[in-house]
């Protein structure tokens, strides 16, 4: 940097978020872990569900399926759209209740707002 010295920016080392850290939000960090665990289990469940649906699609279409197809193929656009709807509904049904205090369990999915 031409005019800025390293010392001018030393303060940034101490800003919140400068280091990755490992925040916990609950007094009892077991609750933090448990929430992480249920989300991870949901994701792992979904990977299996996706594979099963893809396998069924392949079998129905061809009667046989190769491991290579299952690992590296991609479901049809039609199946992907169906899976997306199923996934959104499952997430809302399983996890939505976390926000029932203020009615957030009923909030439908939206994309990130750009403002």
């Amino acid at each position: 940097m031409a005019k800025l010295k390293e010392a001018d920016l030393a303060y940034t080392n101490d800003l919140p978020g400068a280091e990755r850290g490992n925040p916990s939000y609950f007094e009892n960090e077991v609750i933090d872990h448990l929430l992480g665990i249920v989300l991870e289990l949901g994701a792992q469940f979904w990977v299996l569900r996706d594979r099963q649906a893809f396998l069924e699609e392949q079998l129905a279409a061809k009667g046989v399926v190769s491991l290579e197809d299952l690992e590296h193929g991609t479901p049809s656009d039609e199946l992907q759209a169906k899976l997306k709807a199923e996934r959104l509904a499952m997430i809302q049904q399983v996890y939505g209740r976390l926000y029932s205090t203020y009615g957030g369990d009923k909030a439908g999915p939206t994309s990130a707002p750009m403002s």
Partner: protein
Amino acid sequence: MSIQDALFPRGKIAGVYPTLTTRGDEAYVEFIEDARNVLMHAQQRPIGEYSQQLMTDAGIADSPDPETTQAAIDLLMQDPTLKTYYRVKRSLQEAFWSGLSKSLNQRRDEIVAAFDAAEAAGPGTVEYDDNWRENAPEYASREIHIQPGGYVKDELAGPFYDYGLKVFLGGAADHDRLAKGVSMATAVPDDGQVSRILDLGVSAGATTIALKEKYPDAEVWGIDISAPMVRYAHVRAMEAGAEIHLRQMAAEELDFPDNHFDAVLAMLLFHELPVPVAKEAIAEVFRVLRPGGKFTVLDFPSVRSRGVYSMFFAEMDAADNGEPYLPDYVRSNVEDLLVEAGFELEHYDPKAALTRGRVVVKPAA
């Protein structure tokens, strides 16, 4: 290995995002993306109303000064539902990066080899410091969005960031739609002369490519402080057949002559800069723009348009999502910094800060 085989072994998805290694990897990340859509994005408005009600009930003023923001943090982070929301947000972010990096790391060597092979090929050019890892400044090495390795230290920072943008925006950046919108919002001089354009902090380069597509006769330059980013942006430009010139360079130390560019863009750069760096960068843009040239800054609105809740949100994002410079940025009022540097403010609507941005013009000498 060709770019195709290294980056898109299972075909391209939603434009040119790098393809994940297996269908299972993709299903995992799709779950995270939709969990974000349902459990974060859809909650943003109702959880904001809920939080603001808690603040009103506790008599917290709607002033975004640091003490009030701290009082809001102390209050809101005692609420079990809000703790859950911020826990879920952080866990989804951690899970996303872990799933993405596990998947792309399996092809790390192939991807890096494809970058190397692309380097001397055109269209367009790329240049960077050979000692990029050792020479990266500390302030630019933070793990923004808790991206592993941050923007400057990991060779795969470009593909990581690109895929991150897809997931964080819930698909709004797919098919480079966002980048095309940004190229439309980039202001050009009133006389219509557009010979040279500069894009600051290009990351994956989607916007820079869109600028070249919109102004095919202009010379389009893109800079980023990160060598991995400009390397990836070059590969993306080759894919698009766009002739753009990418350089590893700091926005606060531009290696271009005075009065050189007709238009300069900074899309989502300033909230990731410490304020002293932002000020230097603005002075540099003033120098390299020609009189009548325009500078477009697309980024979050500043403190004047934000209440204490938005400030609380920024402080939480800073601490938990690796955005250390966001709160100071929001309080800095970048539109004032631009005017202090000599620019004339031509347009700024805080409600459209991210879509139309702040547009300033360098006055005639």
